[in-house]
């Protein structure tokens, strides 16, 4: 792998790593740590402030916000992560394949992806959910398909540029096959930008999941992902209720953490600026 693990990581990278590890931990073990079951109404007061009996207050039905977040993180992180990974891997593989393929194959694949990208992702999701009923697996597939073309386009344009580099020409003139060119010469040089793209796409997936949940088509109650927590407590925004702020803060720290970590992996890829 091209990461240089011997180099001491930067401070922002460490913050990113800490945030990501924290949220991975919450996603894995959050439901075990939660003080209350996810749907239990624990207080008569809605939108209670932080502190007091409930660490992060209560939501619009008087449920414990901390427990809801601990339960919900699993959906947001797990689903978004797997879906973004699915889209990223498929997109990168296809983009790379297209770049080293003969012209006609590249064209066919690219036009197919263009067709796919022209379908609005939310409408696509609505139609699919209407047809097959909402489930975690279906959400995963929908998001995977919806975000593959974007990834494909970035991967392909990176790979096409790299494919014209002289080191690839040298390998071609050496008589190397397509698979070697793609896997050994091109791919290692596009991993970093693809990771950065993955970070961005992860954020989009979180947002799409949240909006589906808001429409009642995403994660089904009493379960809720972080996005739907924000949406369902939106009426508390005027009074600054922690029920709406805390899940939003959770989403923010997850996405910022992921992006900080990825940026630090990029390392010192900048070309050393020689004298001009």
């Amino acid at each position, binding site marked *: 792998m*091209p990461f240089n693990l011997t180099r001491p990581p930067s401070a922002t990278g460490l913050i990113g790593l800490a945030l990501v590890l924290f949220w991975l931990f919450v996603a894995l073990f959050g439901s075990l740590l939660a003080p209350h079951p996810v749907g239990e109404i624990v207080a008569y007061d809605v939108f209670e402030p932080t502190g007091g009996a409930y660490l992060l207050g209560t939501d619009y039905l008087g449920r414990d916000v901390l427990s809801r977040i601990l339960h919900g993180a699993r959906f947001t992180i797990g689903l978004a992560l797997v879906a973004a990974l699915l889209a990223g891997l498929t997109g990168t593989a296809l983009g790379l394949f297209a770049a080293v393929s003969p012209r006609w194959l590249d064209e066919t694949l690219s036009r197919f992806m263009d067709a796919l990208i022209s379908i609005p992702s939310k409408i696509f999701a609505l139609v699919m959910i209407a047809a097959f009923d909402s489930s975690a697996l279906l959400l995963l597939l929908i998001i995977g398909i919806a975000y593959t073309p974007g990834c494909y386009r970035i991967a392909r344009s990176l790979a096409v540029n790299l494919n014209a*580099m*002289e*080191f690839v*020409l*040298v*390998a*071609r*003139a*050496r*008589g*190397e096959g397509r698979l070697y060119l793609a896997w050994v*010469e091109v791919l*290692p*040089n596009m991993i970093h930008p693809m990771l950065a793209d993955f970070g961005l796409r992860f954020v989009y997936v979180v947002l799409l999941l949240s909006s589906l949940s808001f429409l009642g088509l995403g994660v089904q109650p009493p379960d809720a992902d972080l996005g739907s927590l924000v949406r369902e407590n939106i009426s508390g925004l005027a009074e600054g209720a922690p029920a709406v702020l805390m899940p939003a803060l959770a989403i923010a720290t997850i996405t910022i953490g992921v992006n900080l970590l990825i940026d630090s992996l990029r390392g*010192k890829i900048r*070309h*050393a600026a*020689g*004298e*001009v």
Partner: protein
Amino acid sequence: MSAHVEVQQLQVVAETDTGGTITIVDDVSFAIDKGQVLALIGESGSGKTTIALSLMGYARGGCRLESGSIRIGATEVMDLSREQLGQLRGRRVSYVAQSAAASFNPSRTIMDQVTEVAAIHHLMPRQQAQKKAVELFRALALPEPDSIGSRYPHQVSGGQLQRLMAAMALISDPELVIFDEPTTALDVTTQIDVLRAFKKVVQERNITAVYVSHDLAVVAQMADQVVVLNKGAIREQGATAQVLDAPRDEYTRTLMAAARQPQRHGPELDSAVPPLLEVRNLLAGYGKIDRQGQPAVPILSDINVSLQRGATLGVIGESGSGKSTLARVIAGLLGPAAGQVLFDGEVLPPTLKGRSREQFRRIQIVFQNADTALNPAHTIARILGRPLTFYHGYRGAKKQQRIAELLELVQLPANLAGRPCSELSGGQKQRINLARALAAEPDLILCDEVTSALDTVVGAAILDLLTELRSKLNLSLVFISHDISTVRSMCDEILVLYSGQKVEYGRREHFVKPPFHPYTDLLIASVPELQQGWLERVAQRPALPEIGRSVKSLELCHFLERCPVRIDGRCNRLPPPRVQMQRGNEVLCHHGEQELRELEIPPLKCVAGGAG
């Protein structure tokens, strides 16, 4: 009278990633009198550009002017505030950058950009600025000075753009002009025109200037004083004549030795053996091939060349002449539209597809830019190891041993193997690039401008290495370059390409004395010599003879537009014949041998073949 510009004990430091600082310019002092030109000369990393920029009070990102004094007239640049520096730059000190093409805004007219400085500093009304710009265009020998300003940057040539940039720098009558490698990116035949224009305008307007360059021969033409820099410190400074004729410093002597190309002879060749490489009637280009068999963008036409085993073929021409295309066709990266490439008596399949692994192995290609020719994601061991495994099936300890041998062959320490190539210097990278080709144990190496991106001293070392390897391993080389002195020093046979036509082809010895093809003559005459006054001695080229309209044909002489000895009615009507000279070289020209000898195309001069 004290000097007009004075730099004293200048120190510039750069901050490293770990928070420390490195001194990149240390204790540099020099002075320039009014109307004098001072040259800063050195290799890349010597700090010459950093010093030049510091004269405008500017340090590049991550660097800062640490201590010392920079005085221009009565102003101490180091003491100026940001706003005051803004007043200084462009108005009192101006800058001509290396790449004019990158320095002009493509979406605004040239006149707008040239007069912009006057507008920013409110120096003069618009009308007056434009009038002054036209005067400058005229002084810089630009064509159509009255109307060239209304064009856009892409509508003029690179050499013209460079002169326009000088006009931009001179519009405010600055006290000091900084020329930063202004001709490095140009072809030699263009460089001479630009140098001539610069020299004229500098003399006429009594301009004080700093001229940054790595090319001693260019500096010899332009400068009164020379400062030789190495690693941020001054090695030698003095009058140009003194530095060139009697260099006191060891480093200066090394630079001079590298600039004077020695003869690098290969082994004696047995001419009875059939040639290793033969190119027959080659036609190549890019895009679709039409019904007449012409590609949409024809690059090379009617190329016939052969190369003996162990010999070196030099291919020379300016950018766009088709040199690299020839290498690509031989390597199989580009299929020819017509013609054949024969290797060791066999016809090579036109593209990569049909070639066998053995054919791949025997022909290797080395590209100009080692930065892009080596995969940045791989270690050196991996880069060198791949051809070993791929062609020879080496694995494990055998492979490691061979990698170490290869590194030794290109004179690099064996402990580099585990490092990524991004940690190497330019010269080291080029050696790895070469070692990768050698790993295949090839018969023929195609060297595409292998020294063009390197400093003179480093490039000379690579050329020496190539010469040594060539004798040791009985290699044949196709050596592509835009620099005729390098080609003459390296190669047994020389092919001159102009816009895809083979205009001259013959043995190295025949490229010393005329008769030449008119283009070869221009090429040879344009290479600056390491002597003061060369630029003045080379007579101004006469105006081109008038000719009528040309017939539309690809087969006409491509040099027609620039040829000083073209003949109306012949050159613009008929394809030129290939003339065999008595001594053996071929010339593509309507003029016969006797005519070419008598034409005495000015500037005609014997070229001293360097020190060798």
